[in-house]
C-alpha cells in the first residue's frame, strides 16, 4: 500500500513536467477519485445493514441449522463464537485506530462485512442468533463507523492538500515540488 502511495507521488512529480492544464486535470481527477473513495465506508455500512436485516429475519432462505449441522458437523459453541467475536472486535478497532493514527490508506471496509456475516452464520448454525444478534450488530456498527470515519478523514485531508496544490498551480503555473508534504 505504501508502495502504491510512493508510486502515486512519483506519478505526480512526473506530472510536474507536464503542462499546467494536464496537471490541473490530473489534480481534479484525483480529487474526484478521493471524494468517491470517501463514501466507501458508508457503502460498506449499508451492505452490513442489509446483511443484518437478513440475520434479523433468521436467514429464512437458508436451510435449517439442523440440516446444516447434519451435513457439516457440530458448530463451535456460542461461548467460543462470542470469545472470537470479542477478540475480532478488539483487534479490528485497534487496527483501524492505528491506521487512523499513521494516516495509512487502506480499503478494508468490505472485508469486515464478510467477517461479520460469518459471525451471523456461525451463531445461526449454533442456534444462538437471537441471543447474540445485537452483539454482532454492535460490533459491526462500531467497526464500520470507525472505518468510515477513518476513510472519510483520510480523504478529507488529501482533498484539502490537493486543493492547496491546485490553488498553487493556478497562482504560479507549476506544482509546489519543494514541499514534499503536498505529494502525500
Amino acid at each position, binding site marked *: 500500500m505504501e508502495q502504491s502511495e510512493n508510486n502515486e507521488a512519483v506519478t505526480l512529480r512526473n506530472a510536474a513536467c507536464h503542462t499546467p492544464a494536464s496537471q490541473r486535470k490530473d489534480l481534479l481527477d484525483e480529487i474526484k477519485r478521493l471524494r468517491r473513495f470517501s463514501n466507501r465506508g458508508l457503502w460498506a455500512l449499508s451492505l452490513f445493514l442489509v446483511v443484518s436485516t437478513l440475520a434479523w429475519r433468521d436467514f429464512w432462505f437458508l436451510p435449517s441449522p439442523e440440516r446444516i449441522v447434519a451435513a457439516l458437523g457440530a458448530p463451535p459453541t456460542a461461548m467460543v463464537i462470542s470469545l472470537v467475536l*470479542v477478540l475480532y*472486535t*478488539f483487534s479490528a478497532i485497534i487496527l483501524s485506530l492505528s491506521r487512523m493514527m499513521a494516516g495509512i490508506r487502506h480499503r478494508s471496509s468490505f472485508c469486515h462485512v464478510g467477517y461479520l456475516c460469518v459471525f451471523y452464520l456461525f451463531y445461526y448454525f449454533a442456534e*444462538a442468533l437471537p*441471543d447474540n444478534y445485537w452483539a454482532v450488530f*454492535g460490533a459491526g456498527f*462500531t467497526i464500520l463507523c470507525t472505518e468510515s*470515519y477513518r476513510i472519510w478523514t483520510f480523504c478529507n485531508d488529501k482533498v484539502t492538500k490537493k486543493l492547496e496544490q491546485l490553488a498553487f498551480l493556478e497562482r504560479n503555473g507549476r506544482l509546489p515540488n519543494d514541499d514534499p508534504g503536498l505529494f502525500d
Partner: protein
Amino acid sequence: MFDKIAGRALVPVGIVVTGFLVVCFVLLYSAIKNVVIHDSIVQANNLAGIVLKSTRHAMLKSDRTVNNAIIQNIGEQEGVQHVRIFNKKGIVAFSAKGDEVHRQVDKKAEGCVVCHEKTVPVTTLGNMQKARTFKNGLGKEVLAITAPIYNEPECANAACHVHPVSQKILGTLDIGLSQEATLSSLASIRLQMILFSILTLVLTTAGVITLLKMIVLTPMQKLQEYTERSEQNSNVSHPTGLPYELDKIAKSYYFIRNKLTETERQSVKSTR
C-alpha cells in the same frame, strides 16, 4: 465540528468505547442468561427426581390415595404451575388439578413430541432435552420438565399390578415451574449491567474530555490568543505553563516575532 481538534479526537473515542461496551454487554448478558437458565433447568430436573422418589413407594403399592395427596401437596407449593403423571397411553393418571385426571394428551403436543417424534419413541433423554419453556394461559413463563418413569425390577415383579419386563417406560411425570423468579433475577442483572455500562461510558467520555481540554485545548487556546494579541502588540510576552511541545512553538513564535520587530525597527532607522 469535525475540523476542530475536540471533534476529531472525541468522535472516534465515543464510537469505539460505546460500541465495544455494547458488544461486551450483550455477550456477557447472553452468557449470564445461559448460565442462569441452565442452572434453573438442573434444579427443575432435581425437583422432578425428588417428586419421583417421593411417589415411588406409593406407586409400588399402587396406592392412589397417597399418590394423589403427594401430587396435590406439591401442586400447592408456590412456584409450581402444574404437576401431573401420565400413564403409558398418555392419559393423566394423577394431577394437582382435578379436572385434568383421565384426560388424554396428544403425543404431538409440546413436551411429548421430543420422544414421540419418531415411530419408535425415545426412552432416554439428557437433562436439557427434558426441559421446555412456554407461556401458560395466564401469560406466565413456565419451565416444564418431562421426566420418564422407568420400569424397575420392583415394578415388574410387584404382586399388585403387572408391568412386563420388556416395557421400559411406565409413564411420565410432567412438572411445570414458574420462571418468574428467574426472569426477575435476569431483569435485575440486566438493569445493573446497563447502569454500569452507562456509568463507564459517561466516566470514560468525561475523562477524555477533561484530559483533552486540560492538556490540549486550553493551552492551544492560550497559544492562539497569544499569536492574535502579538499581531497587534509586539511587546506581549509568551504564555507560561504550556505543555512542552506547545511551549516550544510559543517560544519560537516569540523569537521570530522579536526578530521581525527588530528588523522592522532597523529598516525604519535606515530609511530616516
